[in-house]
């Protein structure tokens, strides 16, 4: 089992190669050149230095968001095209799942929070215990107030992680019973680890069917419908 993971859903870019025995190669750029310029050379570098040929891959894993739309599409387009050309499936994983999995050694409520810009965040709630990290609901989008309210409803101490949690650290700490983990960006290493488990269960799909998780419609469509209502 050999999987290439591509991570471009936030400001960072990551590419990792791995299998059942763990990660073979990993390239991570937390902040730097634009995603479109970084991903392909990173794939090439990781393969060359790990002595892996792309044709040896069994699947491509990709972070399908939620996150920054243009960045996400760079990774997803790359994954789709690689999978199509190599005739292998894609394992889609969400940015929130990747972030939550980074807290697998923690015990309790884990809440990944990805910066959605425009004063909003994407988040989801997970339980981390001996059995692993389990999602407790669907990913959400809203203002920080909405997240604080959701945490209040749950009434449980939470470990928050992700760039959204860091951007709104003060509001979260003031409004909710939570601690912040240092993790800011989803890691390609973790993405590959999740994808290996899913690939062993054949939880994958054809490249053409892989779709991003935007959770927010284009502004033009929202404005258009508002206009319709007003008219």
């Amino acid at each position: 089992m050999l999987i290439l993971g591509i991570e471009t859903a936030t400001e960072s870019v990551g590419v990792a190669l791995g299998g059942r025995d763990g990660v073979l190669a990993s390239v991570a750029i937390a902040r730097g050149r634009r995603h479109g310029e970084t991903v392909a050379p990173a794939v090439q570098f990781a393969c060359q230095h790990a002595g892996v040929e792309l044709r040896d891959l069994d699947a491509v894993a990709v972070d399908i968001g939620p996150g920054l739309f243009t960045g996400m599409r760079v990774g997803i387009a790359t994954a789709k095209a690689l999978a199509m050309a190599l005739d292998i499936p894609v394992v889609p994983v969400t940015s929130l799942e990747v972030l939550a999995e980074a807290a697998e050694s923690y015990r309790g409520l884990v809440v990944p929070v990805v910066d959605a810009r425009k004063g909003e965040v994407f988040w989801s709630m997970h339980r981390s215990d001996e059995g692993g990290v389990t999602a407790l609901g669907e990913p959400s989008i809203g203002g920080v107030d909405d997240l604080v309210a959701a945490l209040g409803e749950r009434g449980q101490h939470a470990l928050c992680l992700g760039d959204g949690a860091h951007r709104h650290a003060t509001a979260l700490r003031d409004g909710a019973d939570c601690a912040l983990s240092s993790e800011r960006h989803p890691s390609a290493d973790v993405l590959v680890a999740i994808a290996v488990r899913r690939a062993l269960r054949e939880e994958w799909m054809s490249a053409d069917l892989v779709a991003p998780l935007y959770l927010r419609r284009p502004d033009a469509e929202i404005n258009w419908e508002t206009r319709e209502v007003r008219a």
Partner: protein
Amino acid sequence: MIMRVDSDTLVLGIETSCDETAAALVMGGTDVISSVVSSQIDLHARFGGVVPEVAGRAHLEQITPVVREAIADAGVDPRRINAVACTVGPGLIGALLVGVSAAKALALAWEVPFVGVNHLEAHLYSAFLEDDSLEFPLVVLLVSGGHTLLIEMSDHGRYRLLGGTIDDAAGEAFDKVARYLDLGYPGGPAIDRAATEGDPEAIRFPRAMSDGGLDFSFSGLKTAVVNHVRRHPDVDSRDVAASFQAAVVDVLVDKARLAAERVGATGIVLGGGVAANSALRRDLTAVGEADGRRVFLPGREMCTDNAAMIAAAGWHRLRDDGPSPLDLGAVPSMPILES
């Protein structure tokens, strides 16, 4: 990566700079084996123009099915493909990046070169897809929704800007006037259709900047159309469309002719979406015949954005300059004059 680039070199072209997702296979820079274009016009029509985020989303949905279809239509084994060319600019950044990312990934997977292509340069190669017996220098008239350019082409890859628009692009003027007259979207074909039933001499609209310069201006013409319709609310919109189109075409043809004389061009090459306009094709052809200059017109399906022209331009770029680096980014405002 050293490779021979000749008449047997098969290039996959990819185009996602605006609102068409396209892929094509072209052999030897001229022979179109397959060409698939998935248009997003219907998605943008209600907004009256292309919405970048809507375009980016649609490109991502379409990219692999369109490439698959281009390969299937050609009936070739993907391993036969020698290079992958893709538009890197100018265009919408979020749209461009889908094609560029996919093209690089395909090149990596197939272990063939990646070639970045300038969309404007590719438009003029669409005229050469039908006839590649070129003699330089040539004058290129590139007219689309985003550009109105007169360019001297002294050799493959060698360009000099002779003139451009100081305000609206010609295609933009078509869109705006069509919207004002309620003729539909996109404006170019809508005006062209309405004009066939109208009188081009019904209204004498101004021919802007016919002063011996090679720059264009279309915003005054657009205002003249609006003012005329306001003063004559009962005017037949088909006459307005025909008269407006005649004014645009007169200016384009006159300046192209003037540019060709100045540089001693052997011919005039037409490119861009507005190259599909029937009056422009007819008048430019007539001027070419009168002056003894060849006129290269792209096939109508090759006027709008397509990937065959990207593959053709990519073949020339590969032959003359070699592959592009994999860290080449998308360049939203890429000019045609690179050297």
